[in-house]
């Protein structure tokens, strides 16, 4: 008899709760468009925020509503942009993947330091103090704030003390570009081969005083080679990737500071 009562009570409890849930499910049902569900499933789910939205779901919703263009997602790249276009039935232009690059090759051997910094090991904290310990006020501070924010673990410090981005691991979210106080990290095309690894806009004499591998704005890379993609503005040479790159190797070889580096 006891077992029947136990069965009835627990069974009855389950039945009542089950019916209650079934009713609640009907009342609280959420309608979702199939295209939106498809879009959400196509997202990489990294929630990196590189597209400018709160996360993958928010971006998918914005695309679905037509507020955002497909193809803003760097981790998803062209494959995702194409897929989103297919789902929504629109054409999407292919864009090259952008990856982060540290525009500085200075380290403790090549760049002078003005003082010893022993505060919080964070670039933004160091930057508040006279622009950081390095004599170059626009270069890398080597404290690795970008390493901490990188969601993909693509940024690392080499033995020489330089910060480098692994372009294979980089998902192009751009978080490191915003955290860097000196804006040394910028986005470059994935295929970019020759890059002027300097961010210093001071004139040649001042750069030479601070750093052995800084761009002095001598314009050799721009003037000596015809059809060179390099252009010097504000004493800093910049590679224009929209120009054909076939002369870049020749121009890079002429750089007296050896600051145009080849990225493998």
């Amino acid at each position: 008899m006891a077992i029947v009562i136990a069965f009835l009570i627990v069974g009855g409890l389950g039945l009542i709760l089950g019916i209650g849930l079934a009713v609640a499910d009907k009342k609280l049902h959420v309608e979702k468009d199939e295209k939106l569900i498809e879009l959400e499933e196509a997202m990489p789910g990294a929630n990196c925020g590189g597209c400018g939205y709160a996360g993958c779901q928010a971006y998918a919703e914005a695309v679905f509503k037509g507020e955002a263009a497909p193809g803003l997602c760097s981790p998803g790249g062209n494959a995702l942009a194409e897929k989103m276009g297919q789902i929504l039935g629109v054409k999407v232009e292919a864009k090259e993947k952008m990856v982060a690059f540290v525009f500085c090759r200075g380290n403790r051997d090549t760049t002078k330091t003005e003082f010893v910094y022993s505060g919080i090991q964070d670039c933004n904290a160091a930057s508040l103090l006279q622009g950081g310990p390095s004599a170059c006020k626009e270069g890398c501070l080597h404290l690795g704030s970008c390493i901490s924010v990188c969601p993909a673990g693509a940024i690392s410090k080499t033995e020489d003390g330089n910060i480098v981005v692994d372009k294979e691991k980089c998902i192009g979210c751009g978080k490191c570009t915003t955290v860097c106080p000196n804006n040394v990290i910028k986005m470059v095309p994935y295929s970019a081969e020759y890059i002027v690894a300097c961010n210093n806009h001071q004139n040649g004499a001042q750069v030479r005083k601070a750093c052995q591998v800084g761009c002095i704005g001598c314009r050799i890379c721009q003037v000596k080679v015809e059809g060179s993609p390099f252009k010097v503005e504000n004493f800093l040479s910049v590679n224009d990737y929209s120009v054909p790159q076939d002369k870049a190797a020749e121009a890079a070889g002429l750089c007296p500071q050896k600051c145009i580096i080849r990225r493998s």
Partner: protein
Amino acid sequence: MSYIGILLTYVFIQNFILVQFMGLCPFIGVSKNTESAVGMGAAVTFVTAIASVVCWAVYEFLLAPFGLEYLRTIAFILVIAALVQLVEMVIRKMSPGLYKALGIYLPLITTNCAVLGIAIINIDNGYNLLESFTAGLAAGLGFTMAIILMSCIREKLDMTPVRRVFRGVPIAFISAGLMALAFMMFDKSLIANLGLV
């Protein structure tokens, strides 16, 4: 014990996460940012408070009169699971963003031992209806406080250079351990001295 005494006991002295080490799964899983931590805390508080009352009623009116006290674990789990399902539906309807952020941890409140824990503690201590509700609410508030503190710490940790091997969950567990040490200072003598026993 007075109601304020019960409240203080389960928020501080017997804090479910930092003293009794119950419900660590969502504590680590959903404490990455404060917004979802607040959502998770609110969901758990709601479930513990309501589950305490419903479980107390189920025990007093269904199980105890028929001598079925030995079935309390399974009956409580049944009630808690149904409640969590309900909370999940409500959150999905009200706040899809929060629903996404909580992810798998929302249905996992079902198996959050803090919820079953407070239901059983209520029965073991012989609390009445209102005392059970207070204890459930306090357990949820204690959980919310702990998870919000943790999320604030983890947001700060994200910006500090942590050794690669410690990054993420390991450093979170170390922080949780230090927080648990800090919570050892809350002692039964606290409410005894306040005359709330």
